């Protein structure tokens, strides 16, 4: 057998492999948490608060206990101190207010849907029936629903300590100098509406306490973090807790959480002596899965007359909701590093105030802080271009970091390792047909076409691959950002890979197999990837922040390198050669210059297993662990161009074309990368056009179902044209960058910029998201009323002055011809 015959395809990295995971997913052989059945399994259902804010004066569960089939029923007091307080792992400032957050409320409820009691029954129908037999008395308290007025002295309080959780300030450069006498000042207030992540799999939990052991199956993104947090929250010794994330049906951040139901499932199982299951209904989930976004963003930009940015001043109000959950306060702060985007500037200020309301807490949702920042920045870049009468691509190019300037230390304190904004933009421009569309836009404007054409641009970057542990520490985050992997060489030559990065749709089993096949030269099919069970995968930091490949994948790569190093030593012994003379390529170890001499890594695995002839002092194992802690974040970037047709008579927006050129560095599997981009685009476009979580003025969520909360269907989304440029990351050995959130981060401003671009001749400068036909139509109607037939250019400085500030975002939009 020659080395050539042994050689696997050299293109394993970068190969469009259909996924290993699919075999069970397309045939229904899946293992969702809700599928789990155990002997004696009981079902939990929760009584939830119908009030946004109320004092609990009485809970009586005795009626439920009389319902046949009901085994137990509990109120919050039944759990006492043992239920602890749900954790917030990111105290962003030293004086942050982190209110107690019992998994089941005992004294006060602070959002509609907060659990106040539960019923445990033999089946899910009985548990649901018995809910109505639980009596709860409330003394309603005033809700707090608008964070723009929540900090007023006269506002009711969500918590005794008041409605402010924290204020975070970061400044670099001479801001006053940048704004003083600036020829161009733009000031805008943008609204980041509240979103519901809406993973297709509802949350589901199975808890089982037997003796000392506690096992929790959960539809979670974070089995490892959850295990630590359950131990800290409940006092159950960590070594007695096993967390299993079986097949998990999407997360998008919503399953990056330590939930009340997870904690309570373990405690209830302990109390009733049976395994217990809880699976939310979608309506229950919309109320009680953490929400995303929800910010008021005031952004001020100072520029020179030629469009060069001098300074940027950002002031955010971020709605925390009723409590701080796992990373609630950290989410808006990730934006602190991203409001400057790909641009150079002299000075930058970021302020964020976290404010409590009587709504479901917010937390990570795809992009987590970076979409919000990118939206405001890319929107205001278009405003700058309009102010100066420049092409919005030109104004971006004037300010962006040139490809020869990398690595580049940004005004917000990050160092971007690599990028090429020119290349991505040039490619996107070509694919889009930018000049032809601009010409068509002019024709439609000239002919007063009722359907106007708009072109939206988003030249984004983002920080992902969370994260260098030291940086997280400096930001007061409660954990590190490393990831762990093990590579086990089995006697028969097959390979087991254990990853701490737990997938829920991302395709780790396939991508990790490709990394291992490429590195070790073993067949792709011979690699098995294990994850998602803390007894199988004992260490991990889990999956969020587009970190899996750039941290977890690199850990796998690192473990492979250690396997090779160990194998070389044994190979040298068997070949009676010096270890320094052993080369490894295409899966073979051989003496340098004599590829016929050696053996495969699988043969070394078998020889190691037999251990009959190992060098002295060498343990009989070439299995290896690696833990990778990145030295920097990952900075994917790209240029997205969106063309919308806006019917000025109906307000209907149609995306005519969408081009996304992303640079995610080296690509392991282009099928998976394209899929991530497509899905990301869908969610970002959905924020622009469709989705909004709406609370009424009593604090009831009115979008509790998929009939009310508009997730786009296939008929609502366009075909995407995607392409890539490739600037390898310089901070990891594979040159890879994160891709999971890029599409979501980039696309929202591209769409809204396109809509505003279509309507700018009417004097419209903003439309509040989601840009529904009604809002677009009202904006057009208002603009025509205020200036019939006029080409209002929108003097942002004069218009903006009276209307900026957190109190008047809607009014600002209206004054600009926008509408809620």
């Amino acid at each position, binding site marked *: 057998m020659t080395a050539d015959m042994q050689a696997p395809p050299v293109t394993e990295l970068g190969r469009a492999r259909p996924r290993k995971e699919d075999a069970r997913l397309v*045939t229904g052989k899946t293992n969702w948490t809700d599928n789990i059945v155990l002997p004696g399994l009981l079902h939990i259902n929760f009584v939830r608060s119908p009030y946004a804010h109320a004092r609990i004066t009485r809970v009586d569960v005795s009626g439920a206990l009389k319902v046949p089939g009901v085994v137990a029923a509990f109120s919050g007091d039944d759990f006492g101190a043992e239920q602890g307080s749900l954790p917030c792992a990111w105290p962003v400032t030293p004086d942050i207010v982190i209110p107690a957050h019992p998994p089941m409320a005992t004294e006060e409820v602070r959002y509609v849907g907060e659990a106040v009691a539960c019923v445990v029954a033999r089946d*899910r*129908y009985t548990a649901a029936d018995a809910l109505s037999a639980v009596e709860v008395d409330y003394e309603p308290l005033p809700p707090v629903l608008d964070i723009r007025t929540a900090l007023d002295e006269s506002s009711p309080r969500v918590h005794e300590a008041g409605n402010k959780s924290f204020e975070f300030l970061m400044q670099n450069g001479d801001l006053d100098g940048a704004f003083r006498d600036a020829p161009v000042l733009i000031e805008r207030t943008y609204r980041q509406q509240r979103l519901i992540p809406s993973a*297709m799999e509802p949350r589901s939990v199975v808890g089982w306490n037997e003796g000392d052991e506690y096992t929790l199956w959960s539809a979670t993104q974070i089995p490892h973090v959850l295990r630590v947090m359950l131990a800290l929250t409940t006092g159950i010794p960590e070594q007695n807790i096993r967390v299993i994330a079986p097949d998990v049906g999407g997360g998008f951040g919503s399953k990056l959480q330590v939930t009340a139901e997870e904690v309570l499932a373990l405690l209830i199982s302990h109390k009733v002596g049976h395994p217990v299951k809880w699976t939310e209904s979608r309506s229950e989930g919309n109320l009680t899965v953490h929400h995303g976004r929800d910010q008021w963003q005031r952004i001020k930009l100072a520029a020179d007359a030629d469009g060069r940015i001098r300074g940027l001043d950002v002031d955010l109000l971020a709605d925390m909701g009723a409590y701080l959950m796992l990373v609630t306060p950290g989410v808006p702060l990730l934006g602190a590093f991203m409001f400057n985007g790909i641009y150079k500037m002299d000075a930058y200020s970021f302020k964020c105030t976290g404010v409590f309301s009587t709504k479901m807490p917010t937390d990570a949702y795809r992009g987590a802080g970076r979409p919000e920042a990118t939206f405001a920045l890319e929107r205001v870049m278009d405003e700058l271009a309009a102010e100066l009468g420049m092409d919005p691509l030109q104004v971006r190019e004037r300010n962006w970091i040139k490809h020869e300037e990398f690595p580049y230390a940004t005004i917000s304190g990050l160092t971007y390792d690599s990028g090429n904004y020119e290349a991505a933009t040039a490619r996107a421009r070509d694919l889009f047909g930018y000049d032809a569309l601009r010409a068509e836009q002019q024709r439609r404007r000239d002919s007063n076409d009722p359907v106007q054409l708009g072109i939206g641009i988003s030249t984004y970057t983002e920080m992902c691959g969370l994260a260098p542990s030291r940086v997280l520490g400096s930001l007061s985050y409660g954990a590190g950002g490393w990831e762990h992997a093990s590579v086990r060489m089995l006697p028969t030559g097959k390979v087991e890979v254990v990853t701490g990065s737990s997938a829920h749709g991302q395709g780790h089993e396939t991508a990790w197999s490709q990394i291992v096949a490429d590195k070790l030269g073993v067949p792709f099919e011979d690699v098995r990837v294990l994850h998602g069970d803390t007894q199988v995968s004992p260490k991990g930091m889990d999956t969020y922040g587009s970190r899996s490949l750039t941290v977890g994948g690199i850990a796998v790569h690192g473990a492979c390198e250690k396997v090779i190093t160990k194998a070389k030593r044994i190979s040298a012994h068997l070949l009676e050669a010096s270890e320094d003379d052993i080369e490894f390529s295409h899966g073979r170890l051989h003496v340098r210059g004599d590829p016929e001499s050696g053996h495969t890594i699988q043969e070394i695995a078998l020889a190691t297993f037999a251990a009959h002839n190992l060098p002295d002092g060498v343990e009989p194992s070439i299995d290896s662990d690696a833990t990778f802690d990145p030295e920097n974040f990952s900075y994917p970037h790209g240029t997205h161009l969106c063309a919308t047709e806006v019917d000025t008579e109906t307000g209907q927006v149609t995306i005519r074309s969408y081009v996304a050129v992303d640079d995610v560095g080296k690509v392991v599997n282009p099928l998976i990368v394209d899929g991530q981009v497509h899905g990301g685009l869908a969610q970002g476009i959905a924020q622009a056009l469709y989705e909004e979580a709406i609370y009424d003025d009593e604090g009831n969520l009115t979008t509790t179902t998929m009939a009310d909360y508009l997730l786009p269907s296939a008929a609502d*989304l366009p075909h995407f044209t995607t392409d890539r440029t490739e600037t390898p990351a310089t901070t990891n050995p594979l040159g890879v960058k994160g891709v999971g959130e890029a599409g979501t981060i980039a696309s929202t401003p591209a769409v809204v910029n396109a809509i505003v671009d279509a309507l700018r001749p009417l004097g419209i400068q903003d439309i509040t998201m989601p840009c529904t036909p009604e809002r677009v139509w009202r904006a057009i109607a208002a603009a025509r009323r205020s200036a019939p037939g006029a080409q209002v250019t929108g003097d942002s400085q004069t218009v903006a002055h009276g209307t900026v500030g957190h109190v008047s975002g809607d009014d600002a939009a209206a004054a600009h011809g926008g509408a809620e």
Partner: protein
Amino acid sequence: MTKITVKVDGVTYVDDVEPRLLLVHYLRERLGKTGTPVGCDTSNCGACTVHLNGMSVKSCSVLAVQADGGEITTIEGLANGEWHPLQKAFHTEHALQCGYCTPGMIMAAADLLRENPNPTDEEIRDGLEGNLCRCTGYQNIVRAVRRASGTEVTAQ
């Protein structure tokens, strides 16, 4: 309790069920047919789509008693010795990520192709409007249905 007789994925079952029992819960919890998941409670998402007497239905919106005498095919019964062309196409085109919507999406797509064997992209998008996917942005689902229909899948 009401006695029903149903044939599910080729096997006949006779069961006493509560009249209020949803077909999807009957499939999942009585028959262990957990390949069909539940994604919502308002029949919007389509994750629970199965075929009842050859037509796609959302099994969260059908009572088990309504299926009495009927023949049901779930995702678990779709393959016939080898994967159904849609199962192959979803795999080849990377038309799934988390896979939670996939059983319903494939069952709905099968019904769509029964009615319209050569759909255009637009017809596929309209035809699958009742099935939501949060991961894929639908682009590869459209390609997969085109592939399964035998229509040429154009390069991206």
